[in-house]
């Protein structure tokens, strides 16, 4: 009788102890992650650009965690959406810092990254943008904790100018839109073109939401430029630009920013982009790029382009730095990031690498490539660097 009662008691106690044990090890297993914050945009103006970058991040995450993570722990990405609103971006940065992230990646737009940067600067947390291209991000604020991997606007225009040296365009037109980045890139393009001795004979802005760009392009046509540089980034304005260009029967060569490296344009304005030259950060013939393309095709079933590669390279560089730092201390990670040199990812021209040791904007100045659109596809690289 007594033995029965005892074993009746023992079983539930035993099970409870095992259960607790599993629970404890499970929670400690969960606690054993290294958290990296990601500020993205899921609902606003940058949503279309941020989504492919997130896909690249996720792919890199799977790879890293699949090969035992870093420092013996798994990486966990904490996503926050800032609606492309700079003040919200700063708040989200604080939220992520309070949540215990060791670093933050910003993949929303440049002004949002800038305002978030004011927070990471004070909090001394490593902060990186894999794709933003605004030069002012590393120039305006003296924030040693901030790193930029996107191809700078200045790098883009100089590469285009170098490619066109043989053409010797003396008089060019500049077309942009009234988005923040479009206007800013336009300013950078103009500065560098004028410094290089080219004169801007017409400068036009295509408003977001306009139904056609005939008036703007008529003005451009009247100025008789040798070529047209385009720094705009909003798809609808770009669409009206190309339609007007063809409708007016214009023939000047068009040179575009890295925005045209997004294949979406080939789908929504097919056939109107023949012969257009553009900047890309991605050379699909590069060895590392080919590897990335195959992995991406296997994972998502479609062909990647620059945007997912930004996410992919970005997370790898960050994790690489954490590995070299050997700890999750922010200052040590920052130092390791700053020492990043010679990293060859999926992005960048052949023979170039990411280098933060001399400049917190680490995309190689020689890393931008020039491609031409032929037969409604992005053609191979015809030029790189300057």
């Amino acid at each position, binding site marked *: 009788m007594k033995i029965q009662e005892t074993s009746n008691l023992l079983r539930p106690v035993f099970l409870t102890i095992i259960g607790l044990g599993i629970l404890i090890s499970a929670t400690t297993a969960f606690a054993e992650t290294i958290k990296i914050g990601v500020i993205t945009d899921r609902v606003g103006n940058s949503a*279309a650009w941020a*989504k492919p970058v997130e896909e690249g991040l996720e792919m890199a995450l799977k790879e890293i965690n699949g090969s035992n993570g870093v420092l013996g722990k798994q990486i966990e990405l904490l996503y926050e959406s800032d609606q492309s609103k700079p003040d919200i971006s700063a708040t989200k940065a604080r939220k992520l810092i309070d949540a215990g992230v060791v670093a933050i990646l910003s993949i929303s737009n440049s002004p949002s990254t800038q305002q978030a940067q004011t927070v990471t600067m004070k909090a001394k947390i490593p902060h990186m943008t894999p794709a933003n291209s605004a030069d002012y991000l590393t120039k305006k604020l003296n924030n040693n904790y901030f790193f930029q991997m996107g191809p700078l606007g200045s790098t883009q225009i100089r590469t285009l100018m170098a490619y066109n040296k043989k053409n010797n365009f003396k008089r060019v037109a500049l077309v942009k839109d009234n988005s923040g980045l479009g206007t800013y890139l336009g300013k950078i393009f103009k500065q560098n073109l004028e410094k290089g001795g080219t004169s801007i004979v017409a400068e036009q802005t295509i408003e977001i939401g306009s139904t056609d760009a*005939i008036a703007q392009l008529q003005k451009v046509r*009247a100025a008789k430029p040798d070529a047209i540089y385009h720094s705009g980034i909003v798809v609808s304005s770009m*669409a009206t630009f190309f*339609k007007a260009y063809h*409708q007016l029967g214009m023939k000047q060569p068009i040179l575009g920013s890295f925005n045209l490296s997004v294949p979406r344009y080939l*789908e929504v*304005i097919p056939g109107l982009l023949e012969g257009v030259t553009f900047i890309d950060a991605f050379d699909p013939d590069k060895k590392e790029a080919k590897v990335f393309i195959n992995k991406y095709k296997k994972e998502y079933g479609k062909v990647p382009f620059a945007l997912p590669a930004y996410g992919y390279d970005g997370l790898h560089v960050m994790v690489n730095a954490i590995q070299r730092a050997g700890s999750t201390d922010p200052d040590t990670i920052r130092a390791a990031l700053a020492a990043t040199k010679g990293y060859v990812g999926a992005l960048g021209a052949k023979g170039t690498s990411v280098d933060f040791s001399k400049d917190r904007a680490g995309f190689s100045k020689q890393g931008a490539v020039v491609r031409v659109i032929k037969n409604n596809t992005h053609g191979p690289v015809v030029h790189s660097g300057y």
Partner: protein
Amino acid sequence: MTDFLELTVSIGEAGCIYGLVALSYLLVLRPTGIINFASGEWAALGAFVAVTLISQEKLPWIIGLPLAALAVGAVGWMTERLTVRPLVDRGAPVLSPILALLGMLIFYREMYSWMWGVDNLFVPMPFGFGRVEIGPFAGTSQSFFIMAVTVTVFVLTWFFFEKTIWGKAFEAVALNRMAAALMGINLKLVAGLAFAGGAVIAAFAGILQAPITTVHFLMGLPLAIKGFTALVIGGVGRVEGALLGGLTLALAEKLTIRYAPIPSGFALGIPFLLLILFLMIRPGGILRAKGAD
């Protein structure tokens, strides 16, 4: 000179799109007194449905265009039924439905990005992309198509208001709700039809514009603002006013961009300066309402 003639086609095209949106506002505003800022979102919905019907299901425009417009009309009807009628029934001040519709603006936009994604989408042009010359005027086939459809819509709407009994009912409600109700006019039906009609017309604007500018979930608000500016300029009293307002706005915009010696960035402020000017000098718009001085 050829530039100017070509520009007139561009002005006509843009003016028609703005005019359609303005007409959408007008159709709702007159009988109900409600300013529907979500008109832009109805235009966007038209464009999205056109993507599904014309781009994806490959229906021809002759079927896709009216079908998409009718679908949006149904949405307009539902909107009135669900978010406006309860407020009107309760005697809420006219501001409440206006604000409820602003809330619907957010809801619509997010629905679109959920249902169709955040990327820009494509609608093919019905007559292909190419330069078309009609006399001294040159444009794309789409430009002339837009103008043709717009004029047709305006003529039909004018006809509705002037010649049909329903149109007279709308006018009656606009002039005096109480009297109209006393005469036996079903106020609820008029309101529902007004919203449905406004939605159909806004949808036209969106669908016609879609092949040129592509379709995106954020495309509604700029259209709503432009349409509203056109409405104020043209005057809220008459159907023709909406089109006139749209053309005037387009004229001011394009002429400034093409010929004014100011940086093009500042040319973007023109519509707003125009608006302020009109409000200061002639708040009634260019065309006075019938029955007014």
